[in-house]
């Protein structure tokens, strides 16, 4: 069935179709529509769930842990400052191995306060032990939202998962999607049965214990092992989904890469713009391709090596910056190839922060540097579409 929905609704519909039983959530731009829509589904009798209108994001994720530990399927949603407020508790959710799924309306962090898109919020949580999926469009948000439950709840994994949708560009934009039937999703996910120890008076267990140095490292290693296991489980779930629903997902999606000298690495909604730009360059005979990263945690090292190893220049185009170094994706890609004898040249491009549009002009600026990098040295980190003179002046450098 075709439906016209906004990106936030793709998360809400994924929760509804997954028969999520508890949704604790706190409104924040741009993901507010998720709890609104859930509230509407429940009020209309379309969804049988407990919505917990908590007083903060910190309590949203804390209540999500309590509910998940009690043995029900749990979803929530947030963005930006809300995700940052959850920071402490994100590590607890993953450390307790609870398969909570959270929609993220990827938005810039303060200060200055800004409600528009970049990926800084979830990138800042890449060490939190959550799996991370990034959507290019609303269909992906919906599909990844559904698949996230199956992956997170797999007994080989048991890790929470975030599904990112770019602020406004996706969260507030209406797009047509194929809406799966309830029976198909029921069949795909199966009935929820917790694959973990729950709070059950018939089998009293202690959850959230105190770990001493003699055990702590093993618990952390267990999470690392689970992330490694998740790589395989994600592949299996993507394949099963493709068979059932006909839509193909991969952790890493290479396009036009076979003969490409320059490969652009993208995430999220910018991938659509990039695809069109590449078609334009290809029409001019330029050997360029792109690789879209859909799964950022676990980091798909093997697939990225496979997809990028024959390129001369890899241009990482990303909407985040780790101050004092570079973008997160660039750093991880460079590390991925660190021990490979054959490796491309990596160049980082910081674009589209705080909702600045990523246009063909932006991508042309990127391409110019990448093209130059084919034959000569360029800066490792390149800020695109930035008024550098104004900044140098404000910093007293001119």
């Amino acid at each position: 069935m075709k439906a016209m929905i906004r990106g936030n609704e793709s998360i809400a519909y994924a929760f509804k179709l997954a028969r999520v039983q508890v949704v604790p959530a706190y409104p924040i731009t741009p993901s507010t529509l998720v709890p609104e829509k859930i509230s509407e589904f429940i009020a209309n009798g379309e969804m049988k769930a407990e919505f917990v209108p908590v007083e903060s994001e910190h309590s949203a994720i804390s209540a999500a842990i309590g509910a998940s530990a009690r043995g029900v399927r749990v979803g929530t949603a947030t963005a930006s400052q809300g995700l940052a407020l959850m920071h402490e508790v994100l590590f607890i959710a993953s450390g307790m191995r609870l398969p909570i799924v959270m929609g993220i309306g990827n938005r810039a962090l303060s200060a200055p306060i800004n409600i528009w898109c970049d990926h800084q919020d979830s990138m800042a949580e890449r060490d939190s032990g959550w799996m991370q999926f990034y959507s290019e469009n609303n269909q992906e948000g919906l599909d990844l939202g559904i698949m996230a439950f199956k992956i997170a709840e797999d007994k080989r994994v048991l890790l929470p998962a975030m599904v990112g949708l770019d602020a406004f560009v996706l969260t507030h934009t209406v797009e047509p999607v194929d809406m799966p039937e309830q029976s198909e999703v029921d069949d795909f996910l199966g009935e929820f049965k917790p694959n973990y120890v729950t709070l059950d008076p018939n089998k009293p267990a202690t959850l959230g214990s105190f770990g001493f140095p003699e055990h702590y490292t093993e618990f952390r290693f267990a999470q690392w092992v689970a992330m490694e296991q998740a790589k395989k489980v994600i592949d299996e779930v993507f394949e099963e989904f493709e068979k059932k629903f006909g839509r193909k997902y991969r952790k890493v999606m290479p396009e036009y890469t076979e003969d490409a000298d320059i490969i652009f690495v993208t995430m999220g909604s910018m991938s659509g713009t990039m695809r069109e730009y590449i078609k334009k360059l290809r029409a001019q005979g330029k050997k360029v391709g792109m690789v879209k990263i859909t799964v950022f945690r676990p980091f798909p090292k093997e697939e990225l090596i496979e997809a990028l190893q024959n390129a001369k220049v890899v241009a990482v185009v990303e909407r985040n910056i780790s101050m004092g170094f570079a973008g997160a994706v660039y750093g991880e890609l460079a590390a991925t190839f660190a021990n490979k004898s054959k490796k491309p040249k990596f160049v980082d491009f910081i674009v589209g922060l705080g909702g600045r549009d990523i246009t063909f002009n932006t991508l042309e600026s990127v391409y110019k540097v990448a093209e130059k990098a084919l034959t000569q040295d360029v800066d490792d980190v390149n800020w695109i579409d930035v008024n550098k003179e104004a900044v140098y002046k404000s910093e007293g450098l001119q």
Partner: protein
Amino acid sequence: MNYENEEFFAPGHGMCAGCAAPIIVKWILKWAGPNTIVANATGCLEVATTAYPRTSWRVPWIHVAFENAAAAASGVEAATRAKGEKLNIIAFGGDGGTVDIGFQALSGMVERGHDVLYVLYDNEAYMNTGIQRSGSTPWGAWTTTSKVGSANPIGKLRPKKPISMIIAAHNAPYVATANPAMFQDFKKKVQKALNTPGAKFLHVISSCTTGWRHDPSKTVEIMRLATDTGIFPLYEIENGDIENMRITYKPKKFKPVEEYLKPQGRFRHLLKNPEYVKKLQEDVDAWWAKYGHHYHP
């Protein structure tokens, strides 16, 4: 069913000798019975009872963090409703996790009306980190962050937060102060709370031998003095009706506050200046002058 002869809280925990918190916990669990889930804020009680791989708890128990026991309990309760089940959900928090860092989560839980009994075991300072002042530390108490010296001979300069009144003002169905030393009153209130639907709050005094600086054997005696001097009054408030609060215990003859201060090292400096003792006595007298008529035995 009466579970008074069963122990749902096992020995072998690492709470200090003479700590009052386990007395409070073991009895609340006995009155609640096995059909119970506990959410515990970070603090002495949590740290000292669940050192992996060993636990003192014989009921399902969860700890998430310091400031969110009320939120975690809200989630447990919502999931329990989603499963169509009914059981006792009890949150335990110290004064730090309740009146300070966990205040927002508690306020939210009470406002939303989750069917949870929240128990504050109030030892009047951050004891787990080593006796730092909290919003619940009384005026004049020495702590490691309200030190006593020549420039400040008093210690903490601000009064204790009236947390029970604040929670009652949320229109909580049942709020009470309690003291394990006044055992029958304590029991009645726990049972009443457990039988009241919605968000209940019990504020239980809990002596800390380490932080209050007293002999461990004096724990119950000192808590009894807290009420017999009028410093820690026992009352209950239903449905936010503070006007009609009910004081449930009144000493036949109030003991002077000095008797409560004397055995506790945290107040020793106050005894050097009769003005300080007088001020505390006047505070207590003023409270009873204002609220004493609410005593209905």
